[in-house]
């Protein structure tokens, strides 16, 4: 339906996009005892670190190989070696996840080779799990970094089961996309457990970045899925991938362990959740628990209440592909028109967004389109705040980063309940905007020469 166009500007203004390596680093943060390591100059890590700290309001483990100008030109073996040894010595991680950056990719460092050499030369790290992903900054976006990293984790860490017959029917792998918050992951976990299933999440941000008080101070991740559990994921009966970005990791799992998979591109909205719940009922062999039957009813009721407010709204949305597809589809299903859509990177779902065109661009593009097309609802991450102020329209924050409001890690949009709450939240913003800015006055419908066209356009 939608055509996807690539922006033609030389200068990106107000970026929507974030870089690939930090998407990879975030994926590593869903592993227990992990230390993500960016192979680049110290700023590469520092900017990402500050971003995550501001978003999650948590201490974030993230390290750097601290490449200097000279090291960059000569090659970074020594820096990677020192970094790995230092991290091993100081923080005793269970796994080190290494992502490359623009600097080291420009030189073309062979990090896989480095790791082999480090293992050879230093017996103390010979068996330390290390996963390397190539994620140059000058290609792709945050979501791609996450996608590649999870796929790589599957390839490196999952063991091929000895016998396919010994598959555990209760065990289910869940591969969540980066658009799911820790709160979303907890919700999916609860739903699966309510069907008697035993889910393993890779990565499991719900366990690590949900804001819990840790049992002890560790400089690595607190909580998340353990390397030993990842190794056994091949024994699960099913893999559920959430978001089209996770197709790749699901395929890697199938290839490695023969595990069948199903991709749920969306988990926000009535239809997608019906499909999800039916699937769980089918693979678990259990009827849908009463709790979800009631939640479904609540969602239907919420949709009925909200359609008065959301119906007819012209949505301007800026988000990474999977989040864009999910939220814009849900709002479309409530009667909103997806009028301006901007995203960060290519994805097969973009063509199915309910709009004429999706632009791979920035927030300046989104603001310009929203203004030209008279949008009256803005959905994007916190960086949309300046545009929202200028456009003077209701602004729903979704995606990462969300640094100017609390609770980013717990914003819920999946499941019947998450969809219901999201609908209420957005509807309330619209209602508040109406009360504050669009209350009728005796002059609202008065016909004057220059306002004639304007009044018709807004009401």
């Amino acid at each position, binding site marked *: 339906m939608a055509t996807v166009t690539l922006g033609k500007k030389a200068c990106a203004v107000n970026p929507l996009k974030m870089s690939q390596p930090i998407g990879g680093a975030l994926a590593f943060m869903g592993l227990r005892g992990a230390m993500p390591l960016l192979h680049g100059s*110290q*700023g590469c890590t*520092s900017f990402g670190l500050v971003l995550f700290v501001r978003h999650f309001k948590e201490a974030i483990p993230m390290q750097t190989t601290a490449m200097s100008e000279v090291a960059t030109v000569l090659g970074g073996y020594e820096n990677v070696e020192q970094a790995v040894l230092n991290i091993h010595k100081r923080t005793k991680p269970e796994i080190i996840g290494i992502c490359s950056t623009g600097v080291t990719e420009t030189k073309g460092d062979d990090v896989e080779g480095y790791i082999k050499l480090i293992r050879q030369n230093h017996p103390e790290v010979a068996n330390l799990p290390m996963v390397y992903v190539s994620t140059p900054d000058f*290609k792709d976006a945050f979501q791609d970094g996450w996608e590649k990293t999870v796929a790589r984790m599957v390839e490196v860490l999952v063991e091929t089961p000895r016998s396919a017959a010994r598959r555990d029917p209760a065990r289910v792998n869940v591969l969540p996309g980066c658009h799911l918050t820790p709160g979303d992951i907890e919700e999916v976990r609860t739903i699966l457990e309510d069907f008697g299933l035993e889910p393993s999440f890779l990565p499991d941000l719900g366990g690590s970045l949900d804001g819990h008080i*840790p049992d002890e101070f560790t400089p690595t991740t607190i909580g998340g899925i353990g390397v030993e559990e990842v190794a056994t994921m091949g024994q699960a009966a099913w893999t559920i991938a959430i978001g089209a970005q996770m197709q790749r990791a699901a395929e890697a799992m199938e290839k490695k362990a023969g595990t069948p998979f199903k991709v749920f591109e969306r988990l926000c909205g009535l239809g997608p959740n019906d499909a999800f719940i039916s699937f769980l009922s089918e693979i678990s062999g259990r009827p849908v628990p009463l709790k979800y039957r009631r939640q479904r009813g609540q969602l239907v009721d919420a949709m009925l209440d909200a359609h008065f407010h959301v119906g007819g709204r012209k949505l301007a949305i800026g988000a990474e592909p999977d989040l864009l597809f999910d939220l814009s589809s849900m709002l479309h299903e409530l009667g909103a028109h997806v009028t301006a859509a901007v995203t960060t990177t290519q994805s097969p779902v973009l063509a199915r967004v309910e709009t004429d065109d999706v632009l791979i661009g920035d927030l300046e593009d989104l603001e310009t389109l929203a203004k030209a097309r008279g949008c009256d609802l803005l959905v994007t991450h916190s960086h949309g705040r300046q545009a929202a102020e200028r456009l003077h329209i209701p602004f729903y924050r979704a995606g990462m980063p969300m640094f100017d409001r609390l609770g980013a890690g717990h914003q819920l949009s999946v499941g019947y309940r998450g969809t219901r709450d999201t609908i209420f939240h957005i509807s309330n913003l619209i209602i508040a905007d109406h009360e504050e800015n669009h209350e009728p006055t005796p002059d609202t419908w008065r016909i004057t020469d220059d306002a004639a066209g304007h009044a018709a356009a807004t009401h």
Partner: protein
Amino acid sequence: MSSLSATIQDVFNEPGCGKNANKSEAERKKGCTKQLQPGGAAGGCAFDGAKIALQPLTDVAHLIHGPIACEGNSWDNRGAKSSGSNIWRTGFTTDINETDVVFGGEKRLFKAIREIIEKYDPPAVFVYQTCVPAMIGDDINAVCKAAKEKFGKPVIPVNSPGFVGPKNLGNKLAGEALLEHVIGTEEPEYTTPYDLNIIGEYNLAGELWQVKPLLDELGIRIFSSISGDGRYKEVAYSHRAKAAMMVCSKAMINVARKMEERYGIPFFEGSFYGIEDSSDSLREIARLLIERGAPEELMTRTEAVIAREEAKAWAAIASYKPRFKGKKVLLITGGVKSWSVVAALQEAGLELVGTSVKKSTKEDKERIKELMGQDAHMIDDMTPREMYKMLKDAKADIMLSGGRSQFIALKASMPWLDINQERHHAYMGYVGMVKLVEEIDKALYNPIWEQVRKAAPWEVAGTNWQAVAMAQMDAEAAALAADPVAAEAARRAKKICNCKSVDLGTIEDAVAAHRLIDVEGVRTHTNASGGCGACSERIDDILASVAMTAVPALQAAE
């Protein structure tokens, strides 16, 4: 690139910087590469430092030439405030792609400058170099020059790619860009005897406006602010100011000193954090302006304002003093504010437990020592566990630090206050000091602490992580106390030089065996300080303490 390395060398030779001046020729060549260890804690890069220093210039378009990481991951994340244009908060980046990396990004950069000028028409465009284009050889100086000629507008290259060094170096390289391309390029409409430059103040949370009303009242004009709430034009004609105040410790010392050298503008280093510091700074401003021709009566008026404001602030703070009696503060902060906040807190009657000096320069530390007398606890490398123990032992009631370390305090259920750049409150001048005290009071006496410290109903006493951590540390300490040999081994095992992994014992032995008296000697024999050089101060301390214990031994021998 040769001109960049020349500039870096020049910055390292900065005579105004005590730290660099004290170094040997060889050390200086290496520069302030207090660069972090691979796998050690992360700090900002030189590009980050340059952007922090210049971004508060509000009407300038700041264009980052590099891949998306450099701007996309970090834009609009500073708490500086503007009284006018908001273009500084707009994120501009060339977001270079693979093709640019292969064929060069200069054309894209030129086009980007054109797009910005056509769409936003700022008085100037600042172009920031980053690592990837620096590696592939994009010549931003040439592109900026061509763009300037083509569009008839200042296009300023800021050559500070991340990999040349840490944040601190970036601050100075930013200053160099201003000195080379901006300062002295325009003329003011008029000047007065009351024209003051403020250098190194970023107007975080609008704190400059806590002081500006006082300057306004005295008739002192902030002629040019570098860079908080600053304008391009003001910086361009800043060379006509009568005097300058340098606010942010060492971040832009090169700008202040070179402006004194080139344009004869005298400067002093001062602070508006704390009541006495504010008064001293106002006096110093008046004194310098009078020296440069302002009428003598300015000092009388200044003293009157100081007296009035001090009385007001003291009265406001006095009500808190009984509440703060016996309360201790753990202060952890970088170089910018360590020394200025120490004085401020003491004025409020709070006792200081320690202050981390991780990012402070030697002079900062000296200032802290001076301010806090002999009781200064210098906490260089405190682990989270130790920090928790310190808080828990009620040695501290509240922790003040930058945003990144807040979680240690909060997870330990201890009051905490943000005093670095991400904070939401302004703490400058007399009103700012009162605000800081008010915030500390709010944090200390919030009813949540009692609640969050309570164990969950299902928790067995003594088994939560806090108790376990405390017991573990106590056990370790007890084991060492009972075993002098182990204690001595533990003392000697303390790592002094992280780069070359040299411990205290090795250095002490070398000093004793070879009768070493300086850092160079220690380096020759142990290789300590052969890396980044950051540990040379610790080695100085070791040499001093070895000399101290050696004196009685010699006397006894005589």
